[in-house]
């Protein structure tokens, strides 16, 4: 691979163009430096766990970037063209994750699935998130890996996502109790095997339905994206085993925003959300001591290294002002929505459905409905 070889093909531009894209040396070096620093600090702080999560985060960033594995664009393709193949893969990914999440959660080995309450806040938040991800052109993981890859749109969307998620953290506590049915597990009270079978049947059934809908319109799941789905599932298993929880993205953004707000003098620690044990601990400790935050940093580096190695930065240009406004609005909506609905496509939909939690399914339905509105709004922003 030219990226690692001593003789760069850049000495011969014509050969370079035909052999491999140019390496963006300065960006690559910058990210490599931060990657080494991140791994070193995380390793000193949390030992092999932190180091492993940095490596897994970088691999996830690289895979998402390399395969352009998007949730927002896949859902939009389904709503606009009837191509159900991306959604089929997303449900297949959840089924593969469930294969490990549900049995391990039922064991005494430590890892626990992602359960969250079914409530009005979930419905409002998921709908907002779905709308926002279409306006910003990326979901939680999409914003992260595209930002890592130097996307001008996501350079705008990410700060607004962070701002929105801090606002969401302040809004969640008073709204959380509205119509709350508590956490509902699909197959609760049944044996782990039966619970796994029911959830696998539901997830694979949805994968089959969306696959069939796509085939009716002449769209098929490609081997390449099927391979990417399996690869991401394996990485999700590893994250689940190492961190003891399913992979989550958006809490890291909320923490970054809260830290900045706190440094600016805002008494963020006095708000109810930040007095809950998890958020309180995260706020009091380093941003590298929280799994979601640490993996977000690593994912940016992994995606950035991948983009730098393939010359993706040279291709990026600023979208027009209207699209940047859409990215900002989408970021805010996703930020608030993620906190109200307990995550994004990764933390709520994927982790929730793969853990057998009903909230993941409700999140999917409402985010898909929100995507319909988001797609309609895109035309007002010149998409």
């Amino acid at each position, binding site marked *: 691979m030219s990226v690692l070889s001593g003789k760069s093909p850049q000495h011969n531009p014509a050969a370079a163009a035909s052999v491999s894209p140019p390496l963006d040396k300065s960006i690559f070096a910058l990210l490599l430096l931060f990657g080494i620093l991140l791994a070193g600090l995380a390793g*000193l702080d949390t030992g092999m766990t932190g180091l492993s999560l940095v490596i897994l985060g970088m691999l996830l960033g690289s895979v998402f970037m390399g395969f352009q594995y998007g949730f927002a664009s896949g859902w939009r393709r389904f709503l606009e063209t009837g191509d159900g193949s991306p959604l089929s893969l997303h449900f297949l990914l959840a089924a593969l994750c469930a294969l490990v999440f549900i049995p391990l959660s039922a064991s005494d080995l430590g890892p626990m699935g992602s359960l969250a309450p079914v409530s009005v806040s979930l419905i409002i938040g998921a709908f907002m998130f779905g709308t926002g991800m279409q306006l910003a052109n990326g979901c939680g993981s999409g914003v992260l890996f595209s930002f890592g890859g130097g996307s001008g749109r996501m350079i705008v969307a990410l700060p607004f996502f962070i701002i929105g998620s801090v606002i969401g953290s302040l809004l969640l506590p008073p709204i959380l*109790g509205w119509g709350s049915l508590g956490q509902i597990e699909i197959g609760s009270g049944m044996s782990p095997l039966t619970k796994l079978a029911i959830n696998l049947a539901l997830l694979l059934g949805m994968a089959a339905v969306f696959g069939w809908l796509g085939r009716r319109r002449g769209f098929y799941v490609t081997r390449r994206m099927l391979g990417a789905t399996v690869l991401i599932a394996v990485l999700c298993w590893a994250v689940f085993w190492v*961190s003891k929880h399913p992979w989550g993205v958006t809490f890291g953004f909320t923490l970054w925003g809260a830290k900045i707000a706190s440094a600016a003098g805002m008494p963020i620690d006095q708000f109810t959300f930040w007095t809950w044990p998890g958020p309180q601990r995260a706020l009091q400790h380093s941003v590298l001591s929280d799994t979601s935050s640490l993996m977000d*940093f690593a994912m940016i580096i992994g995606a950035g290294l991948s983009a730098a190695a393939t010359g993706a*930065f*040279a291709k990026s240009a*600023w979208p027009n002002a209207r699209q940047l406004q859409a990215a900002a609005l989408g970021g805010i909506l996703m930020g608030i929505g993620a*906190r109200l609905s307990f995550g994004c496509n990764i933390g709520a939909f994927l982790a929730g459905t793969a853990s057998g939690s009903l909230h993941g399914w409700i999140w999917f339905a409402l985010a898909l409905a929100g995507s319909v509105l988001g797609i309609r709004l895109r035309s007002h922003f010149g998409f």
Partner: protein
Amino acid sequence: MQRTPTPASTAIITPRLFYALAVLGLFTLAIIDHLNSPALSNLGAPTELGNACAPCGAPCIDEKPK
């Protein structure tokens, strides 16, 4: 590195430059936060990551708000 001028590269602040500054700022802030956190007092005695009950921001199972 020599490049053929493109609309992206002729802009005053390209996404590439903005990205480099954003990443520099983000990671500098992260490192400053880390160095000012209790993490440094635990060198050589790694601690557990703090996501025990809020990986998705949801309230803890045994700490549900009333």
